[in-house]
Each structure stands twice: as structure tokens, then as C-alpha cells.
């Protein structure tokens, strides 16, 4: 008992303890699958700084421009809170922005710039149509998208992609 009480204060690393004394539980398929899923997603995340293709996929996830819903949805379970330097500029179509930098005067946003039309509906969207420019930057890689957002007859909006540019490397 004394030894056990003393032992309680010894330091155990959970992963190593599970490996060494986890018994047959570690050999079960669902347990392996769970570890495998955590490991695979960790690798995917850690690849982002070094593999431009991974960055591009996650940026397209944020801008809702993945090639297909079924390519976008599995990425949604990958934690990515406050990833990238994201900005947006929303301009009513009847008051087009100045020529030149489409992101001049843009606002910062934590993630998913197009969410302005769903989650953050406090912006008072009264115009009939808007131009929404979104830009995400990450270690010299950039995704820029321009969307046309038109009010529909029933009061909702419809968003269409007008322009998309991905670039990697020095600008």
C-alpha cells in the first residue's frame, strides 16, 4: 500500500503507459483505428507548413471553393481554428471599390471569410448585390477569391465564384 501511494506521484506518460501496459486493448481494431485517425490528421496538419498542396486544400476549404462537397466535408473534422491570415472586403455592387488593390481597407476575420453571409449576419446587408473579396495568406502562399453575391427574390442571397487565384512563393 505504501508503495502504491508513493507510486501515485510518479510520472506516467499516457501514450507510453498505454503502449506498455495497455494489454490486449491496444490490439483491438477500433482502438488502432482511433490512434490511426489521430496520427493521420496530425501528419496532415504538420505537412501544412512544408507542402503547398496541403495549404491550398485547407485554404480552399476556408473559401468554400473545394472542387466537390465530398472533398470538402472530410476536411471539416480537422481542427483549424484561427488558421491563416484571413481578410475580406465586402462592397455593395452599386459602390464599386477603387481600382487597384482589391483588398484595400479589408477587415481581418478568424476563419472562413464567406461566413459573413451566414454566421455573422449582424452586418446589415441591405444592398441587392455585393462583391466579396477574400484573401488568406500563409508563409508566402495566398488564395484570393472574388465572389458575386446577389439577393434572390425570396430575400436570401446566392453566392457565385467570379475569380480565384492561388499563388505560392515570393510575390
Amino acid at each position, binding site marked *: 500500500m505504501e508503495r502504491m501511494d508513493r507510486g501515485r506521484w510518479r510520472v506516467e506518460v499516457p501514450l507510453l503507459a498505454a503502449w506498455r501496459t495497455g494489454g490486449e486493448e491496444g490490439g483491438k481494431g477500433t482502438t488502432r483505428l482511433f490512434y490511426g485517425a489521430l496520427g493521420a490528421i496530425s501528419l496532415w496538419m504538420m505537412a501544412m507548413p512544408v507542402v503547398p498542396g496541403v495549404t491550398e486544400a485547407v485554404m480552399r476549404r476556408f473559401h468554400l471553393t473545394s472542387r466537390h462537397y465530398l472533398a470538402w466535408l472530410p476536411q471539416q473534422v480537422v*481542427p483549424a*481554428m484561427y488558421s491563416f491570415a484571413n481578410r475580406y472586403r465586402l462592397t455593395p455592387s452599386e459602390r464599386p471599390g477603387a481600382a487597384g488593390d482589391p483588398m484595400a481597407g479589408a477587415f*481581418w476575420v478568424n476563419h472562413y471569410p464567406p461566413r459573413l453571409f451566414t454566421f455573422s449576419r449582424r452586418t446589415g446587408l441591405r444592398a441587392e448585390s455585393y462583391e466579396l473579396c477574400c484573401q488568406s*495568406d*500563409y508563409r508566402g502562399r495566398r488564395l484570393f477569391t472574388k465572389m458575386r453575391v446577389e439577393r434572390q427574390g425570396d430575400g436570401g*442571397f446566392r453566392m457565385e465564384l467570379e475569380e480565384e487565384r492561388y499563388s505560392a512563393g515570393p510575390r
Partner: protein
Amino acid sequence: MKPLTGKRLIAWRIALAGWLVGWFINTSENVGLFVSAWERPILEHPLFPGVMCDGRVALLLFALPLAGFAGFSGGTVFRLRVVSGILALVSLGLLGHLCTYNDATYTTTFWSALWMGWWAGRIEGSGAGAERHAIALGQGLVGLCFLGGFVGKLTPEYWSGEVFHGIYVLQKPYFPFSWMRDNWPEAASKTASAWMGRGMIVTEGVLSTLVFWPTRAALGATLGVFVVMTLLAQVQILSVLAPLAGVMVACGFLGETLEPEDILRDAAEG
């Protein structure tokens, strides 16, 4: 069938409690959004199938976890598995819905529900092996959530404080950011933003390694960071944090029920 009892069930229910707090804490905001999308989509987007723009679908997915309260009474492994399955599926559903896709709540509820579903299948067993894997997986998935934030911020705009200043100091309407905006010179608030941004990156990087931490230390550090995050943000951030806190507290609880590893090893070796 004999109802389940014991510490393993208590741990599962701790995780369930955290899950439900996280899910329902934003009820008024979410229900308002879903009702506004009741008769027509608030937005049509070519990426989303029509059904995933429908406010009625979102409201149904949001309400289904009320069934989760069944996990607090009596219960069989089957019931706990069904509850966990529902919680995982509705999380995935709202992650894929146009009204809610951007909300990190549903990422953390998804992973928490997966852990609960996996653990539900171990509640009737004995031996410390399952507990040790439960702790490793629980700490691993909480670390995974920090890893996502950490890697995504490894960019000069975050390190310089530019993003933190733009998102928090310039835009947040609550203390301390509104006070900084109104009372501090811009240069001072930018310097503070740089250090806050760096602090955030370093904290997330350190906590992304939780799977390698002793459980008590992991629990203390995680809950401490969650308290600071809640103070700096608003109470709504608990929707993201509570499901993770539930898993971490469940892991801490399981850790306290275990005999030390070396005792077990010595016993096994005779």
C-alpha cells in the same frame, strides 16, 4: 439487463456533460439562425447540396442531442453507443451545413463524441489497459485540437501581431480589447498584440503535445488555458471548449482510479 455502474460509466457521463454544455450553450443564437433559414435558405452556394442549406435540417440536427440526456439514467452499453453515435453524426451534419460549417464547436463535439463512442464499448470490461488507452486517446484528441490552431498560425502575420491586432483589438467590442482600443496609443496596442499573438502560438504549440504529458499536469494546464481563453473571449467560447474539458476531466478521473504502471508491471512479472 443489468444497468451499468462504476467509475467507467461516471467517466463517460463526465464527457457527456461537457459535450451537452458545449452543444446547447449557444442555443438562442443558433435557433435564431436556423429559424431565419426556415422557409428559404439564407444563402445558396454551389458547394452545398440543397438539403444542407435548409434551416429545418439544421434545427433537427441541433435538437437531436436532447436524446443525449438519456445517457444520464440507467443505461446499457447499447444505449451509450447509440447516444455517442447520434452525437458524432449530428456534429458531422452541422459541420457540413451552410448555417454552421464555420463553428469550431462542431469539430470539438465530433471528436469528443468519437471518444465517448469508443469508451462506451469498454465500460463493461475490467483491467487497467482500457483506461490507459482512454487517457492516451483523450489527451491525444485534445492535443490535436491545439495542434490545428498552432500549425495554422505559423505565419509571419500572426507572429508580428498583425492578425491579433486586426481581429481582437480593432474589432472586439468587449473588455479588455475595447479598453485597449480607446485608451492605448496604436503603437502600444500593436506591441501588446504581437506578444499576445506569440503567447497564443507558443501556448498552442506546447499543448499540442498533451498526449505525452502526465495526466494531472495535462488536466491542470488545459483547464487553466481554457479559463484564460474564456476571460479573453466571451462565454460563448465555452461551446468549443466544454466538450474538450469534459474529455480531459474524464481522463483525469480515470487516471486517479489507476494503480501506477510500475506496480502493474511488477505484478505481471511476478
